[in-house]
């Protein structure tokens, strides 16, 4: 609960720090990208703050490179 509240406060501070100058300059694209990333960041932080497990990107790395790694081990350890 406290974690979620804290993250929201941080997110609002970040938004207040960046968004006004973007609005004044009418840089729409910047504002979009910034908002999308902020939403992803806040989403991830809250999920983590509530102790929900997030999939580990390194697991994907292992799936992709396991055949190559096994091949190298077989080549150099025979």
């Amino acid at each position, binding site marked *: 609960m406290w974690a979620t509240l804290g993250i929201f406060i941080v997110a609002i501070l970040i938004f207040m720090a960046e968004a006004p100058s973007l609005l004044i300059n009418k840089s729409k694209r910047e504002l979009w*990208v910034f908002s999308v990333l902020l939403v992803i960041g806040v989403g991830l932080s809250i999920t*983590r703050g509530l102790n929900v497990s*997030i999939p580990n*990107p390194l697991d994907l790395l292992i799936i992709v490179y396991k055949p190559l790694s096994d091949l190298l081990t077989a080549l150099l350890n025979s």
Partner: protein
Amino acid sequence: MENKKIDLPQFTILVTLITVGDSILVLPAIPAALAKQDAWLSAILGLLIGLFVVYLLGTVGKLYPHLTLVEYNEKILGKWPGIVVSILFIFYPLLSVAAHVREIGDFTTTHIMTNTPVLMVNLIFVVIIVMGARLGIEVIARSGEIFFFFFTILFVVFVIALVPLIDLENVKPILEGGIKPVINGAFTVVAFPFMELLVFLMVLPYVNHQKKIRKSFLIGSLCGGLVLVIIIAFTILILGYDLTQRSFYPTFALAKMIRIGDFLERIEVILAVMWILTTYYKITFYFYILNLAIAQIVRIKEYKVLLYPMGMIITVLSIVISPNAAYFNDTISKYWPFYDSTFGVFLPLLLLTVAFIRKKHEKIGYN
């Protein structure tokens, strides 16, 4: 493109600092586990191959000296394939930064501040990374010059203090298991310091004196590589391969052995300072590259607006990326080198080949 310029000496120093990076602390354990007492041979072999990799990267940088990697991806591979490659590429600095922040956090909470939660250390570190990246590449390069001076002094002191402890018995017998383990150990020595330098392809347009870049690139990585060869050789010569492969942080164990006379002991914090310094530069630089790459893919002018949200994402990712130390070490030593070589060798080769074929076709077209 923004009007930022860094000088050649600054560029060289930045390359050296980033080559040393976090490798100074965590690298020696991996070749020691694979090549045993011949790990120092792996280090030398790795340095030689590593210089070839850097030469390859320098050659790719020469294709379009005024564009960054993300920009000439689209130019060489075509618009949409280029964008796909670029999007795959941004995950590389993203995961790297998260993994390195976690390394800092793990090290600090196991050796220095043992009762602090790892999230807090990571969070504080991410804050200073965001501050560094916000100031831009010029400031990163200039401050690198100042800190490089301190790093050199600390490193020389470190080496002089360790020389009396060398025991040559530790490297015998040489080539006991033949050449294969040496090659196996050399792979990580090439991957971690040298292939990871590919991120420099993103800043080459900002360097003055375009023609001499490849040379400075090679000199910088050679200096950094020599530091690593010395460190790996010392861990084997002083600790022996068994102790080296068992420690998470072999260089730190090495530093604990330093005693000067009978009055100056436990100065291993010198090493921690060196390590945190070089790793800070590596992470900040990667983080800068990450935001620059995203900004160039989505075509916005200012990368700075992305920094705070990305900082949040990195903080969470740095916690998620490692459920425990065993999983993390296993993944980093077994699979990460392949990830490095995908972007550090395969992608440059692909770009060179396609650019070469394109040039040939254009020539035929003109005739």
